[in-house]
């Protein structure tokens, strides 16, 4: 991995951390655990479009570990990690299929993120009762996913997505 790529990834990790911090300062506005904006997903989606799946996974996992240390706990880190991995896998597949644009990719990433979190929460708490929250989590993920997706789409378009990544490789 060349230096430019490392720098590029480091920049996106820093960006994701800032976005995680901003998000951690926004008080929970709905009383359902797991509902949030997912601002950091902007950096992850951009990483996926400009660098590729492996690099985006790296950015995402390092972000999860760092924000668990800084703003959360081991348990919250575990929830985020499950959501982050599932979400990135889904986004990479949908992007690869070529059928969907940045918004579609981002929305399904948001939904999968919440599904991963609720899955691991059911596993840790050993209860199916959390399924009760599922509809709310899906609906909120669609809403926030559209917003985040539009922001990401604008970024990818303005900064040039893959082209930006290629410039980073040169």
């Amino acid at each position, binding site marked *: 991995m060349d230096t430019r790529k490392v720098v590029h990834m480091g920049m996106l990790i820093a960006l994701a951390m800032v976005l995680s911090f901003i998000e951690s300062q926004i008080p929970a506005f709905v009383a359902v655990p797991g509902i949030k904006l997912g601002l950091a997903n902007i950096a992850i989606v951009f990483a996926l479009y400009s660098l590729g799946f492996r690099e985006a996974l790296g950015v995402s996992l390092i972000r999860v570990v760092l924000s668990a240390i800084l703003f959360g706990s081991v348990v919250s880190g575990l929830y985020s990690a499950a959501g982050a991995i599932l979400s990135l896998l889904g986004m990479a597949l949908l992007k690869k299929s070529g059928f969907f644009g940045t918004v579609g990719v981002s929305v399904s990433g948001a939904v999968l993120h919440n599904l991963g979190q609720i899955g691991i*929460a059911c596993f840790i708490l050993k209860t199916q009762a959390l399924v009760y929250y599922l509809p709310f989590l899906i609906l909120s993920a669609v809403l926030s996913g559209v917003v985040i997706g539009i922001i990401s789409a604008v970024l990818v378009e303005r900064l040039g997505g893959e082209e930006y990544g290629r410039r980073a490789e040169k």
Partner: protein
Amino acid sequence: MDGKNRRATLVRDLILIAVLLCLGIGLLVVSRSHNRTGAYAVVMVQNQEIARYSLAVDGVYDINDGTNTIEIKDGRVRMTEAVCLNHLCIRQGWIRFENQSIVCLPNRLSVIVRGTDDSYDYVL
């Protein structure tokens, strides 16, 4: 990407969003349609039932060695105190229907409303 291609992608994105919205609303309708008023508030810690209170009896109870406090009133239950950072469990307010739950992730605790027949796990 040319204009035509872009429009096709946008349409597919919109279809995907619509499908996910329908899924969410569908699940919501299904989960709402069989609401029955519960009879007990069951306190679970890591899948172990540690306490059970009748919703017919009003009262305030310290649970899980005092990490949480629940209040039962008029057949409903809510979390009133919790030793945790975000207090999401408290903000969830009252619950009264079977299989509704209040979850306190930091304390790995959940309060679930169960019916008289103790019909177990929730299947959508």
